[in-house]
């Protein structure tokens, strides 16, 4: 998995709002963090007969003065069994507003973006899997007031 991002921040009311654009290249079928089926521990197959869909989400994780841990989902997608398991998205804008609880985005050097997914079976356990590969992104020290999104 690989992601490239560029970003800028803007204050809205009194909380920081971050803007992130990203590319996602992922090959879910052959990913390292595959779901292991019960009977064959050596195969790393994610879409087996009992998988109805994967709920993929890109989350940003970071720390601020106000809060020790923050996690924000920037984008999500439902991938049904039968859909193309390779993702190749470019220049995506985040689906959800990246508001911080306070002003912790300005100058924050370490925002980690990770792709994870929830395996939804036809029946059974609902595991959450984190994809291998994540990207660290810094936010700039100043606010942008005129950039258009």
């Amino acid at each position, binding site marked *: 998995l690989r992601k490239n991002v560029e970003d800028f921040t803007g204050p809205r009311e009194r909380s920081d709002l971050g803007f992130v654009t990203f590319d996602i290249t992922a090959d879910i079928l052959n990913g390292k963090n595959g779901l292991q089926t019960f009977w064959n521990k050596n195969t790393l197959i994610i879409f087996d007969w009992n998988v*109805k*869909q994967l*709920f993929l*989400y890109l*989350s940003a994780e970071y720390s601020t003065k*106000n*809060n*020790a*841990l*923050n*996690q*924000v*989902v920037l984008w*999500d997608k*439902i991938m*049904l069994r039968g859909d193309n398991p390779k993702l190749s998205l470019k220049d995506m804008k985040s689906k*959800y507003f990246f508001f911080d*609880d306070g002003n912790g985005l300005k100058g924050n050097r370490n925002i980690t973006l990770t792709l*994870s*997914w*929830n395996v*939804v*079976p*036809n*029946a*059974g*356990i*609902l595991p*959450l899997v984190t994809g291998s590969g994540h990207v660290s992104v810094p936010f700039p020290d100043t606010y942008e007031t005129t950039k258009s999104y």
Partner: protein
Amino acid sequence: AAVAAVAAMLSLDFLDDVRRMNKRQLYYQVLNFGMIVSSALMIWKGLMVVTGSESPIVVVLSGSMEPAFHRGDLLFLTNRIEDPIRVGEIVVFRIEGREIPIVHRVLKIHEKQNGDIKFLTKGDNNAVDDRGLYKQGQHWLEKKDVVGRARGFVPYIGIVTILMNDYPKFKYAVLFLLGLFVLVHRE
């Protein structure tokens, strides 16, 4: 006429059975019934303790988590305090003052050093997050609002509960038949 005759014979047989049971056997059957009810209750309470949730099994009532979950699916929950709430998890929560629990996914969390956490949820099938559903003036959910985290699920089975809720006559019929069956069954 033949059918009516057979029916009449069968019903007489059935009543004979009941009449043949003397008082002691009747008490025995009632006790049996009581045992079954107590065992069921014990299993339910046991589940509550093991999972840490006040409602370890819930039925999905709305379509807001489709296509993952549909109305009538059964969800198995745990609510262990050591499990931290993280984005992507499916939580079942109650809004203050409302009885009906909601099953949605965690979209955002802000957690303090001491473990205090506030989070936002959204249904997969909804266009917007749940802030509009929360109480007036409430912007976040907290640990205390959580009934449990969905760990596993079985489709369709919960439809029976929904039917029993929507059609009370159906519920009474089921309960009546069950009670009758247990009372009359000799073993």
